[in-house]
């Protein structure tokens, strides 16, 4: 493993977005992973529609909450093409699912994997290198007040409540950490990102990990 790796350096991660007053973190994380997987394939980096996932992933509850796993199952099962955000923009509220013709351009999910990587965070780092940014679900209660630095305490595993996207890791310093893209805007944390200590399953970051291929 390299000492430091961040998919942002490869220009395959879209800008941090804000979910506003919508509980749609699960959709933001999944769409972020699809955007990156698409760009890693050599395609242009496109901002895809979170609203489409919020409205159409029928086992979830849109801005009322959901599960990345349900969204991935839905994307994989239906082979729905995620359209560009400009085509189906974010409204921060639930809406009726819009359908597009098969000729509409978009990105569909070919496959996904979901695993528990607790006590195997080096394997998780390998998965990050192999597949691209990873969707994870963490305990983010104390993230309400986070300003920066490496999160090591004040959260637990087994209490997951917030979906985010791991884009990289950094082991060059005294405390190795995951680089985590959040969906609370760029003014939160470190330009919209959090740094979470690697190796101790902090905040349950390795408990529910999903990777996407497109």
């Amino acid at each position, binding site marked *: 493993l390299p000492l430091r790796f961040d998919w942002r350096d490869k220009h395959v991660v879209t800008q941090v977005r804000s979910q506003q007053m919508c509980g749609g973190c699960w959709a933001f994380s999944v769409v972020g992973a699809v955007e990156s997987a698409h760009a890693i394939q050599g395609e242009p980096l496109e901002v895809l529609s979170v609203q489409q996932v919020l409205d159409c992933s029928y086992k979830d509850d849109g801005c009322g909450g959901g599960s990345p796993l349900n969204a991935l199952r839905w994307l994989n099962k239906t082979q729905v093409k995620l359209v560009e955000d400009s085509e189906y923009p974010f409204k921060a509220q639930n809406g009726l699912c819009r359908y597009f013709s098969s000729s509409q351009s978009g990105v569909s999910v070919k496959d996904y994997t979901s695993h528990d990587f607790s006590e*195997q965070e080096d394997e998780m780092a390998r998965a990050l290198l192999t597949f691209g940014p990873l969707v994870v679900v963490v305990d983010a209660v104390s993230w309400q007040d986070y300003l920066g630095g490496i999160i090591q305490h004040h959260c637990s595993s087994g209490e997951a*409540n917030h979906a985010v996207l791991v884009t990289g890791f950094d082991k060059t310093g005294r405390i190795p950490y995951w680089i985590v893209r959040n969906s609370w805007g760029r003014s939160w944390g470190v330009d919209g990102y959090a740094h979470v200590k690697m190796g101790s399953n902090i905040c349950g970051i390795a408990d529910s990990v999903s990777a996407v291929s497109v």
Partner: protein
Amino acid sequence: TWSRSRGRDAAAFRESLRRHRFLNSSPWENTTAFYGVNQFSYLFPEEFKAIYLRSKPAMFPRQPTEMYKPIPNVP
């Protein structure tokens, strides 16, 4: 939707300041994260949870550990 008032905002903010003091004065030696005022400081934790922490966890299978076998002595 939460009914907001200046009094409620102020109370949530005061509680946030108390929380920041606690989070920043942890007993661990290796503390590197810092906590303080941000866009969520006017929310009570239960409001914050209700609005922003809406992802449901799922149980996933453990990532299978690779079995490493010793390489036999070969010429």
